[in-house]
């Protein structure tokens, strides 16, 4: 999807199809969401196959839906690609579990992913990022979107406990989960693509755990930590370990690359912003927040209404699915002045909700923030300027907003 919207156009909210993959692959959804926020903050759509969902697009309403598990449960699935099929992992997979069990399991996991805990990884992340950027600096065309798919694995692989030889395959599998309809990743059909990738990822973690049990080896990796925590006094079941391990892999892999690519694209299109950040590296943390707001890689999450819930001037009926459009909330003028302007000095950029909101706020956010800060510090330090070397290709997905290709060339900085 285009991150800088084109001109406003006539939009008929009665016929707009928010699940139309073309809208994201080649189209421009921001003008649609602009009209939804203004005219239909609670929007209802029936898909051609009869499935229905409601949408909230305003910042305040998106936070409400994501934040209130009593009215909007996660236990029937949270990803719109599964709309209409109750989540088979409900109550087991952490992201499909409501408090209080959710809180019990999340706390010990989160303790390993706080800003303080991940801070010790900074030097190792910087080395990985430096190595990642090296081939971009030789003056040749560098496809940032394609290469960046591997960046989270490079950074989080050692933290999770995943050997380097497995990274590429795992990244491909997580990309299949995130965008099962994109021609780069699809196998057979959308359903087959999802099943194959779920199966192999869960199978991977299951084997990992089995090997670990067998060898008795211990380390301080996150997957090993999953095996040793005792939320509520008992260890996680093997299925919980496998599903939460899968979820950590997915969360790490499928979003960060798109924030990197989308933010770099925004900087290339706005050399004055690039220059500003280069002149004052203290602006980089805010650049990262603005990049997160701007790209909103996790475009939405879904919840189901527990009872009839009044929201956004209407009522979501009990049992109905509600899609909370994060990509829209992050461009809500009620909170962000001139929301379609990319501004690395935006005073309240930190209020972006690209990591979600409420109990399921991204558990890896501190690590993602650290990785993005280090990435932009190194990029700005090493490159005088960046140029587009071709047209970007966008991901065909209504769930993950991202790119599959972003060819760029970099001018190496000679006086670092």
């Amino acid at each position, binding site marked *: 999807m285009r991150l800088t919207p084109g001109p406003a156009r006539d939009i008929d909210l009665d016929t707009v199809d928010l699940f139309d993959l073309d809208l994201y692959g080649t189209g421009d959804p921001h003008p649609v969401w602009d009209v939804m926020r203004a005219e239909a903050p609670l929007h209802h759509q029936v898909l051609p196959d009869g499935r229905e969902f409601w949408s909230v697009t305003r910042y305040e309403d998106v936070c409400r839906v994501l934040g209130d598990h009593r009215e909007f449960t996660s236990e029937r699935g949270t990803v719109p690609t599964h709309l209409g*099929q109750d989540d*088979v*992992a409900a109550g087991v997979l952490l992201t499909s579990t409501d408090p209080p069990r959710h809180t019990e399991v999340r706390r010990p996991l989160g303790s390993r992913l706080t800003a303080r805990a991940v801070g010790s990884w900074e030097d190792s992340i910087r080395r990985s990022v430096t190595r990642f950027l090296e081939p971009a600096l030789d003056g040749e065309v560098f496809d940032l979107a394609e290469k960046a798919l591997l960046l989270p694995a490079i950074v989080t692989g050692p933290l999770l406990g995943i050997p380097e030889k497995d990274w590429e395959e795992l990244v491909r599998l997580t990309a299949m989960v995130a965008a099962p309809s994109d021609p780069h990743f699809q*196998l*057979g*059909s959308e*359903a*087959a693509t*999802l*099943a*194959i990738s*779920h*199966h*192999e990822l*869960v*199978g991977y973690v299951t084997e990992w755990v089995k090997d670990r049990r067998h060898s008795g080896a211990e380390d301080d990796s996150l997957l090993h930590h999953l095996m040793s925590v005792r939320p509520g006094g008992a260890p996680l079941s093997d299925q919980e370990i496998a599903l939460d391990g899968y979820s950590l892999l997915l969360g790490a892999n499928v979003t960060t690359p798109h924030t990197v690519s989308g933010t770099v694209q925004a900087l290339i299109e706005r050399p004055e912003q690039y220059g500003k950040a280069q002149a004052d590296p203290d602006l980089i943390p805010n650049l990262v927040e603005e990049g997160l707001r701007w790209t909103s890689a996790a475009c939405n999450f879904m919840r189901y209404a527990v009872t009839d819930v009044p929201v956004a001037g209407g009522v979501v009926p009990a049992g109905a699915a509600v899609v909370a459009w994060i990509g829209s909330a992050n461009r809500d003028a009620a909170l962000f002045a001139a929301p379609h302007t990319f501004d690395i000095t935006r005073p309240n950029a930190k209020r972006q909700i690209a990591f979600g909101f409420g109990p399921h706020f991204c558990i890896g956010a501190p690590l993602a923030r650290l990785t993005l800060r280090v990435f932009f510090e190194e990029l700005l330090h090493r490159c005088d300027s960046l140029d587009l070397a071709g047209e970007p290709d966008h991901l065909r997905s209504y769930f993950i907003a991202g790119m599959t290709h972003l060819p760029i060339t970099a001018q190496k900085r000679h006086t670092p």
Partner: protein
Amino acid sequence: MESAPQVIHPRGGQDETARRDDAPSGGPVPLVDEIAALWAELLNRPEVGAEDDFFALGGNSLTGIEIIERVARDHGVRLSVRDFYLAQTPARVAGLIERERSGT
């Protein structure tokens, strides 16, 4: 999605009832019928036809994991995850097992 009960046409394309009449009771059950019965059990369906689609029957990766395990245990063949989900019907899954057994 409800699937209408289907007549099973095993290899040779005989009619199901005709074959059952001919088969001596206690004789070997065709592989495709065994696979269809396994799916019916794990997908909680009264009946599954040879050409029924795994996903239309409500199949997902968790049932897929169980099916592949059971096939490995009962038939001694470890199906590839990819082949299994791309096959999508009991008839084609039975074909995969046959091919695997004959080593082609």
